[in-house]
């Protein structure tokens, strides 16, 4: 699965460029600077990993990219250039058009990110109808295709099931299918395998990479696990306390980690390897 050496990242077309992004949280009495001037970019067909410990601001950075931050957080400054347009200038309607259609997400806890009162089939059909002018029946047929695409076998059962009746791994497949319903240009995966066990984790990672090859989207993968980064990515950004402290090609970062936090993250997974 290692793709680290194939792409240099420089000769390719830019899909997303984030410049000096700052996000603040307004708490009861104090202002927290969660993201303090992040620069990052994602090219077409590239897999980029955003790594860092809990609380380093990686998730907030990801949420800021389509402006789905919690209400007490706000983007203070910066630019988010997606396909040549600054997303921060978009009005709410334009923004809804970008979300799901151009930039899609996969989250950490698949089961709680699915609506408990709809069946899987209805839920996927919903998203399709949201962005494409399809009849409900056509949308349901498309939902079936999408589930086939994420390698779900007993389609009839899954389509008529509610999220709580399926396993975490199955729900994550469903969520991936839903996110890819409108063929986004960029998929942001925020620790999509952290809540799953190791064998399922490997399956989901493999699936994501296969789908990426097949559908040709870019992947921004957020994780604290550099072992994953080594397996799947072209480039790695390491975040620490709200800042990007290191950016490097995956092939280089493991041999010459510059920042001490990168060294810590590498040491952490090597330590687990030894147990």
């Amino acid at each position, binding site marked *: 699965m290692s793709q680290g050496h194939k792409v240099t990242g420089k000769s390719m077309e830019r899909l997303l460029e984030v410049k000096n992004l700052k996000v603040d949280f307004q708490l009861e009495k104090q202002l927290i600077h969660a993201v303090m001037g992040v620069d990052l970019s994602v090219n077409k067909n590239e897999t980029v990993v955003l790594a860092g410990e809990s609380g380093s601001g990686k998730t907030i950075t990801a949420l800021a990219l*389509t402006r*789905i931050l919690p209400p007490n957080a706000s983007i203070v400054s910066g630019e988010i250039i997606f396909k040549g347009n600054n997303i921060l200038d978009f009005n709410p309607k334009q923004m*809804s058009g970008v979300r799901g259609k151009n930039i899609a*997400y996969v*989250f950490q806890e698949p089961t*709680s990110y699915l*609506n408990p009162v709809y069946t899987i089939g209805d839920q996927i059909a919903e998203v399709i109808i949201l962005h494409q002018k399809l009849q409900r029946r056509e949308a349901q047929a498309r939902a079936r295709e999408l589930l086939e695409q994420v390698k779900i076998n007993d389609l009839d059962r899954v389509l008529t099931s509610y999220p709580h009746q399926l396993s975490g791994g199955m729900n994550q497949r469903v*969520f991936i299918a839903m996110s890819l319903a409108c063929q986004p240009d960029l998929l942001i995966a925020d620790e999509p395998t952290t809540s799953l066990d190791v064998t399922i984790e490997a399956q989901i990672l493999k699936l994501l990479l296969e789908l990426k090859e097949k559908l040709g989207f870019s992947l921004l993968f957020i994780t604290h696990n550099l072992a994953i980064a080594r397996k799947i990515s072209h480039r790695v950004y390491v975040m620490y306390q709200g800042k990007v402290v290191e950016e490097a090609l995956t092939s280089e970062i493991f041999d010459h980690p510059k920042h001490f936090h990168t060294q810590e993250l590498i040491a952490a997974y090597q330590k687990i390897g030894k147990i």
Partner: protein
Amino acid sequence: MLMLIRGSAINEMRKNPYLIVGIIIIGILSLAAILAPLVSPYDPSLIDSQGLLMPPSPKHWLGTDSLGRDLFSRLVYGSRISLSIGIIAMGIATFLGLLLGAWAGFYGKFSDTLIMRFADIMLCFPTFFLILAVVAILEPSIYNIMIIIGLTSWMGPARLIRGEILSLKEREFIQAERALGATDARIIIRHLIPNAIGPVLVNATLGIAGAILLESGLSFLGLGVQPPIPSWGNILIESKSTLGIAWWITLFPGLAILVTILGFNFIAEGLKKVIG
């Protein structure tokens, strides 16, 4: 709503005696109301001067009133009025409550303060006297009563739905919907309300009972449904003057109100268990 149709919910319903009894009672009453012309043996306003204040007999199952009208037929036609007032008034209240409560809960801040403080003010009024005053100004027709009861009982559902939405909107799947490009309106209508509808449904069922009682009270005071249209409340008030000699005219409408309210309360109680 959708959760109710689920197979396991249907099984649970079978094990729930409250719900079954409630549904049977309200089912029979609704059927009687819909099929009133077939069910009732006489025209409800047919006056029989030969048979005034007849006690229950095979000819008149529940007796006749002071004008010789068949009490059973009047109760059956009255159930049309009482049930439809209950259901439509509560429909209006629940709709308004959903709309205002969802708005307040979802957008919060200023609109929340505005809507909920207005609800508090409305709750401070003694509703019954407010309705009395309004009916005294407008004319007391069936439609006016439905609308007025609806407009003065939206606060309960609004508070309920606001509370539900306040907690639901922080849930992950709502963030996921936003990430998938759903607009506010879509999130509220397709995702928040279906998840919050359970307690509101229970409240609405109880509310129907409340609205029927309110209508009976209004009619009893002569400010509700006007004779000769029969409603349970105004049949009761007509019985007042003949209470000493014709107990049945008081007993049966009273029983009808009691059984209906009991039926709706049973359904509400049962629903609470199935949904909760």
